């Protein structure tokens, strides 16, 4: 009885007097802050963000902002409640001292904490050639500032846009270019767009979709060099197949780099795939021992997922940030009995070429696919992915009302292939290989990556181990 009372006192005491620092002022950080206040945390809350903007929503940046409908700085996230925090925006965290429990900032300040939430997310992988990256007209897209610059460049009606990388964001940007009536070439190293996340069978459909909308899609090809004119503006791109393109805008859509550099030397389980944590968002130290006072949420987190053989999942998904932020917030002010797991059913969407692509589960965990409902020709269908006789993921193209049926099957680890629909059956329901790329072959960095069982396992290296400077690449205004 005495211990229980002591424990209850500890929680109350912490909720009243504890100091929490959240590093990362975007979606996960904001929702965690709101969750903390919802939980009755009344102590000091500091939110640190390297961007000078208050938390804003990123998905519109590759769609309605680029299209010119919405201003780049007009995607501020709605607030669900007051968070009563000290906001330190426009200053990056540069180090973590676990002995003294302080976060070091770029301006030299030290911010003490009792508990810390890491929510620093990811940044765009820059163009691999630093000199070429400084050419005017070469962009990456991650921040609202990026989006504003790129929107202006597209509005100036460039002769041709080159998008390097046909993942979800690259494909969405290509779609916007076509909606704006711009000539656009997409260069993708893999055999088809979207293969990292959805496999080659769906990738082929995505490729046809792009070409039907007038995209000059080049697959199996990489961009080896960019050349500029005398004014320092990009004008040409050299492809690995020997061809040269005349281009005025180049967007490097090469995936993400986790913002873990500031944690170097802190003795945490960080690496290429992010910051490893348990399913309650508590970070592992470098030995694989879970810490008590350091939590992580959002794009930068890697957590074991019971549904996927406890493999660590690193999810760059919107609702992973929302749910993870909320669970981390709850768990930061709870002790063992009250902690909750963060066990999302991974889910994502992409709006491109007039199609709403929605997915659930982890496609790359599977090796087979079966198209279940609808028509591939009409680009309205549902498909399920399986592994060893169990359904592990599903995707719909303009068929989103059916997705939750497959989501429920995935949650139950139901048999694969799933039962045939009672109508509108897409084919013979025979599974075929889903054609996910060999993980040893470098392609893009997909949104959902399976990163092995051990907290310190680095997984496949896709690029030479080079220190990218914190704070992203420079690009022309």
């Amino acid at each position: 009885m005495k211990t229980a009372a002591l424990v209850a006192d500890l929680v109350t005491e912490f909720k009243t007097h504890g100091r929490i620092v959240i590093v990362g002022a975007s979606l996960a950080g904001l929702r965690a802050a709101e969750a903390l206040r919802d939980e009755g945390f009344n102590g000091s809350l500091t939110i640190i963000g390297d961007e000078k903007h208050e938390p804003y929503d990123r998905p519109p940046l590759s769609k309605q902002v680029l299209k010119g409908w919405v201003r780049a700085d007009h995607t501020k996230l709605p607030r669900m409640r007051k968070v009563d925090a000290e906001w330190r925006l426009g200053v990056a965290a540069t180090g973590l001292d676990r002995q003294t429990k302080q976060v070091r900032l770029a301006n030299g300040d030290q911010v003490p904490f009792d508990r810390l939430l890491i929510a620093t997310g990811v940044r765009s992988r820059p163009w691999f050639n630093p000199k070429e990256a400084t050419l005017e007209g070469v962009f990456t897209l991650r921040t609202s500032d990026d989006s504003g610059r790129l929107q202006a460049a597209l509005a100036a009606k460039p002769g041709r846009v080159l998008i390097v990388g046909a993942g979800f964001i690259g494909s969405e940007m290509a779609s916007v270019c076509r909606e704006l009536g711009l000539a656009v070439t997409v260069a993708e190293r893999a055999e088809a767009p979207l293969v990292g996340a959805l496999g080659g069978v769906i990738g082929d459909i995505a490729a046809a979709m792009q070409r039907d909308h007038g995209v000059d899609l080049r697959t199996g090809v990489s961009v080896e060099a960019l050349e500029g004119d005398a004014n320092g503006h990009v004008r040409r791109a050299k492809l690995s197949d020997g061809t040269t393109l005349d281009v005025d805008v180049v967007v490097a859509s090469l995936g993400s780099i986790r913002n873990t550099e500031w944690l170097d030397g802190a003795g945490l389980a960080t690496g290429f795939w992010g910051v490893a944590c348990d399913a309650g968002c508590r970070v592992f130290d470098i030995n694989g021992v879970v810490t008590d006072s350091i939590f992580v949420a959002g794009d930068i987190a890697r957590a074991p997922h019971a549904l996927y053989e406890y493999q660590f999942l690193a999810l760059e998904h919107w609702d992973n940030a929302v749910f993870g932020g909320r669970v981390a917030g709850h768990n930061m002010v709870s002790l063992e009995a009250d902690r909750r797991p963060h066990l999302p059913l991974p889910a994502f969407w992409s709006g491109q070429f007039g199609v709403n692509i929605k997915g659930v589960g982890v496609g790359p965990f599977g090796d087979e696919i079966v198209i279940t409902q609808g028509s591939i020709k009409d680009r309205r269908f549902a498909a399920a992915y399986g592994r060893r006789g169990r359904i592990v993921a599903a995707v719909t193209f303009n068929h989103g009302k059916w997705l939750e049926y497959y989501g429920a099957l995935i949650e139950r680890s139901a048999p694969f292939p799933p039962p045939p629909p009672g109508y509108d059956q897409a084919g013979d329901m025979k599974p075929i290989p889903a054609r996910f790329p060999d993980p040893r072959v470098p392609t893009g960095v997909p949104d959902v990556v399976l990163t092995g069982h051990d907290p310190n396992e680095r997984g496949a290296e896709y690029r030479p181990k080079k220190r990218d400077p914190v704070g992203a690449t420079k690009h022309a205004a």
Partner: protein
Amino acid sequence: MRIVIDLNRCQGYAQCVPLAPTVLKLNGEEALMYDPNPDDSLRQQVLRAAASCPVQAIIVDRLDEKGEKA
């Protein structure tokens, strides 16, 4: 005012679009695009749209720009 739409929840019912036509647009049959920071004068329309969503995917601010209850 501020909104964000949970496009994972959204299944493309589009019950919302006609109720706030300058804020919500359908791209194709099902993909929803929206203005995240619409003018305050559109608040009642946005509230009608948010209430109409069968899966409650439209999240409307509960605080206004001053940080007070909206």
